[in-house]
Structure formats: C-alpha cells, structure tokens
C-alpha cells in the first residue's frame, strides 16, 4: 500500500506532474514540523495574530433550555477571519514560504478558506489566487470582495456544477500548470497525501485546547464532541486528540440539504460509496457508472461530494459516528443559538448545533457535550434572510 493511508482510504491518486511536488512537500513538512524555529514562529502567529487559544464557553442558557447535558461551545468563530480555517492556513503558508514558494493558490466554498488564505498571504507577503465556484461567488459575494481587499485574485469557476468541487478541480489544474513557485493550500483534510495529514495536524490545536480547557473547567473529559463535516477539517481538528480516549464519543454532522432521501444533499457517509477522486480513496457521492454526483447544501462550505480519508476510516472502524442535519434544521439552529446565546454561528457550524439540539435533552445532566463552533455566521446573514424570504437592501 502506498503512502498516507487510513485503512484502505487516502493515497496519492494524482497526476505524475505533481508527484515530485507531493513527495517534496511531505519531506519538507516532516522536516519543519520538528524544527523548533518553525514551531515557535507558527505558535506565535496563532497566539498573537489569530488570537488563540479560542474560548471554551459554557452555554448556560442553551443547556438549561434543552434540559440535559452540559453544553460547551468551542469558539473557533472568534479566531481572526472568523473560522477555524486560519489554523491550517497559517501553517501551510508559513511552510510554503520556508519551502521557497512565493505564490499560494486555494479553493473556497463558503469563502472562509479563501479569506483565510488571502489573509495569511497578505501577512507573509505572498501572491494569492483563489478559485471559487460561480454559484458560491453569488451566495457569498461579500467574501469575494473581502478577498480582493486583501490583495488576492479571485477566479470565478464556471465549469461543472460551479461549486466547491469544481473550484478544487480548477485549483488542481492551476497547480499542474505552475508548480515551481506555487503551493496549493488545500483547505480541508482531503486531497492526496500528505494534505489530509498536514491539515489535520494544523487543526489538531482545536482538540488540544478543548482537552486542556475542559480538564481545567470540569476536571474530566467530555462525553461527546460534535462537529460539522464537509471535507472534515474542523471535525478532524476537534476529534484528533480524543481518538485515544475511547470514552469520548465523536460525532460528525453532514449536510442533509433537503433530506438524504432526496437528490439534494451532501451526506457522503450516509449516501456515498467508496471511490477515488481528488487524489484520495474515500467515500464519495457518486452514481451512474462512477460519475461524481452534484451535491447540494444551503451551506457552501459543506457542499462537497467527498469526505476526508481519515473520517472515512474512523467511520469504518466505528470510532466516530456520522449523522446529518437538513437545511431546515441548520437554519433553525442558526437562529436558536443567535437568540439563546447571542452567538451567530456559521451555517456550517449550525449543522453541529442542530444535532446537539436533537440529543442533549435526552442526556444526563452530568454529561458534557462540546460543540465545535467552527465559524461565525456574519457571512450567512444575507443568505439566511433570502432563505426566509426576507428582502434586504444594503
């Protein structure tokens, strides 16, 4: 079996043109992650620039309202740029710079990863180009302007279904065309090895902090950690340091869109099959002789037909459980947390909150649930208004 496997999943199913670059990236990453200077530099950026550690907040009103488990929110929404994406991006851009790259490219769905990459590129003085599906540039028009403001060039992707998957296709096409001076900052725990491992390692700070914070606050580990899953980076980050603690239940929440029994969902574990795409073996929404299916979610960030290979493996071995939440449930959770706690969560994160709302009431009062609030919802306000039929004028 080749490099970077999680059970049968993972691997390096990539164009020969990129193989030397992937091997080089792995070697450089293995070198720099042990380099005290690199580690120090990254930790300083995370602390002084991104604002880490992020808070672990006891959601008292929500806990009382649901009447069961004690609910804590991991506030990744409070990071600079408003989401967990900055953790990975600072790591990868710093690594790319150490490798001598002068230019970074990225795909983006909701725009959070694009904004984060543009931010890190501005900070580190690198050129940045972001690929974004045309549908998403409409859903998240403000983020397009935000990236441009940060000095990035945004490419509108008009191929395929014009969403995240197609943005990844075009980012790979760009990387194949210009690999010498360019690093592709993949935004999730997906793609060919070593990306799923690199992204997971850079996001693992989330669970490292949760563990420390909850031990300090409660003196024990949580009973459950819940996170939304598209490609799976915030979930992998929230799960990773708990993998060995088998008493901690790990739950990933996929986007069920209009329902997993309709054609309009992005629930890969629930409905996908084993396949090989975007450089990895994993589960994918596919059909019709192995064509990748168009997927749908109200959340541009979860609108992806695959799932990272480590999640596929955690599902196979039963270490993590994967459930789903519909658009309606996510919107309800979005409004619920806004009113209940005065925190407007990203529509992606709202999927995780929706699941907590389903189950927390039936749990013991001694139980502790941690929800990873992977991003803030300011970017979604206009889309939610549209969803509810409210007309906004800016």
């Amino acid at each position, binding site marked *: *079996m*080749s*490099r970077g496997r999680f059970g049968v999943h993972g*691997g*390096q*199913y*990539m*164009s*020969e*043109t*990129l*193989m*030397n*670059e992937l091997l080089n990236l792995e070697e450089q990453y293995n070198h720099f992650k042990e380099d005290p200077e690199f580690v120090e530099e990254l930790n300083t950026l995370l602390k002084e620039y991104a604002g880490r550690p992020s808070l672990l907040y006891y959601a008292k009103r929500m806990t009382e309202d649901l009447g069961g488990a004690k609910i804590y929110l991991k506030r990744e929404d409070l990071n600079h740029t408003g989401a967990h994406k900055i953790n990975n991006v600072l790591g990868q851009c710093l690594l790319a710079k150490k490798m001598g790259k002068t230019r970074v490219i990225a795909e983006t769905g909701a725009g959070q990863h694009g904004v984060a990459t543009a931010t890190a590129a501005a900070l580190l003085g690198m050129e940045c180009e972001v690929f974004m599906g045309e549908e998403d540039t409409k859903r998240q028009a403000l983020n397009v302007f935000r990236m441009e403001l940060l000095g990035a060039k945004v490419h509108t992707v008009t*191929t*395929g279904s014009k969403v995240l*998957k*197609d943005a990844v*296709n075009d980012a*790979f*096409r760009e990387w*194949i*065309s*210009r*690999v010498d001076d360019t690093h592709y900052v993949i935004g999730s725990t997906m793609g060919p090895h070593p990306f799923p491992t690199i992204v997971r390692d850079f996001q693992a700070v989330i669970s490292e902090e949760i563990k420390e914070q909850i031990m300090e606050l409660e003196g024990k580990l949580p009973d459950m950690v819940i996170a939304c899953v598209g490609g799976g980076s915030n979930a992998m980050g929230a799960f990773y340091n708990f993998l060995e603690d088998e008493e901690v239940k790990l739950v990933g929440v996929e986007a069920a869109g209009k329902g997993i029994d309709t054609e309009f969902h992005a629930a890969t574990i629930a409905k996908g*099959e*084993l*396949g*090989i*795409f*975007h*450089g990895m073996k994993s589960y*994918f929404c*596919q059909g*019709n*002789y*192995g*064509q*990748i299916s168009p997927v749908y979610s109200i959340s541009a960030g979860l609108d992806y037909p695959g799932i990272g290979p480590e999640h596929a493996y955690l599902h196979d071995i039963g270490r993590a459980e994967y459930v789903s939440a519909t658009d309606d449930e996510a919107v309800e959770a979005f409004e619920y947390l806004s009113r209940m706690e005065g925190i407007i969560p990203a529509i992606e994160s709202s999927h995780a909150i929706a699941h907590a709302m389903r189950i927390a009431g039936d749990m013991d009062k001694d139980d502790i649930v941690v929800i990873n609030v992977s991003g803030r919802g300011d970017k979604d306000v206009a889309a939610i208004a549209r969803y509810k039929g409210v007309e906004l004028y800016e």
Partner: protein
Amino acid sequence: MSDKKDIKIADAFKDGKAFIGFLTAGDPTIEKTVEYVLAMEEAGCDLVEIGIPFSDPVAEGPVIQEANIRALSNNTNTDDVFEAIRQIREKSDVPLVFLTYINPVFYYGYDKFFKRCQELNVCGIISPDLPYDEKDEILEVTQKYGIDIISLIAPTSKERIQMIAREASGFIYVVSSLGVTGMRSEIRTDLESILKDIKEVTDVPAAVGFGINTPEQAENIAKVADGVIVGSAIVNIIAEHGENAKEPLVNYVKSMKDAIS
C-alpha cells in the same frame, strides 16, 4: 475478426513513427465514435486512445472538458463505450487503449472492466490519476488479463523518469508540458533529455503528447520520440463539425501522419 488475433501496442510502432489520436467516446454520439475511429485508422492513425467520459476530468483543458460534458449529456456510460469498441472490432484491428480517470474503472469493478478489455482486444489503459506510486491498485488484474498500464512521464518527473520507465509496458506517454491538455503554440520542455533517460533503461516505445496540434510540431517531436499523441486538436475538429467531422478528421490525420513519416 479480432478475437482470433492478438493485437498489440507494439504493432503501432513497428513501421516507423506512430501517430496516436485521441477522442472522447460518445462525443457527439457512440455511433459517430465508431465511425470516427475507423476513419482515423484509414487515414493513418496507428493507435487510438478512447476517452471514457468523466464528470470531473481534472487533467484536461477546456476542449476535452467540454467533450466530456457533451458525451455525458448524451448519457454515454462505460457499457456504451464497450459497445462502441465491439463495433469497431467488427471491422478493425487498430490497437486501442482507454484513457480514463480511475474512478469509473473502480466503480465498474476492476476484474469486470479488464476482462471486458481483454475480450475486445483493448490493449492498455492510461489513467491520469493513477501515478506509478499507486499502480498496485490495478496491477494484478491488468496482468491477469494482459492489459498494459501506460506510464506517464512529466517534465517534472526528473529522477522518477528511469524508475517509471524500467517498469513500463505498452508505450510510455511523455507529457510535453506542464499543465492540462490543450493546444499550445510552442513546447519548451527539454524532451530530448527526458527521452534519452528513458532510452537508457527500456526499449518500450515513448510517445509525446499534450499541446501538439500542427504538422510542424509533430515533425519536430518525431525527430526525438517514437510517436506523437494528439488529443485536443482532434476533439476540437469534432466539436466544430459534430456529426459531419469525418472528412476534416481524415484530412487532419493524413496531414499529421505525413509530417512524421
């Protein structure tokens, strides 16, 4: 007629430089794919690469991406592609290889897919997302059915060139340039040194593709390589002429084959 013969990729290279043409099956229709493959063979094409359409052809430029979309919008599936090959094989012994992303093959089932290849005398598979490092994915099954995995070598392969070439079978596909498929006005890669590295370790023929579209380019490439591969230029003719592309295809293939003969 084909099942009595053993068609080999080597046949394409036995009479001088090979001209290798590519088209996407089902573009514009499966019937036309059969007609166009036979026409290209008559015009001098030594080997034909048949593309199995895929929803997300990440290694392709716009011309072949659009051919994939046209083929899929006709609902072309893998069984239709095999049916086209069956019809081609009623009339022709031209060596054929598939160009396909690995997922449609995985989904079809490796054993079923390569068994069908053997039955229809499809000699090899080129998979842009199955590099040397992942070829164990299908190696056992392809060997069982005698199908060659065509290795790709890129301008960035460097010290990987000889590692890949040593284990190559059928022919070696040398990618002329960085980037995705598509016509280019010039090719700057030092192909001579790549081909020299290859020739040091293997006798398997090496053909160059990506970006080649004019007879002049083909002639120059043929000076250093055993064959010339043309995809986007052919697909572009089909895009332009749709169901009436036979004559322009024949003229084009003739001009390219003449240039390298």
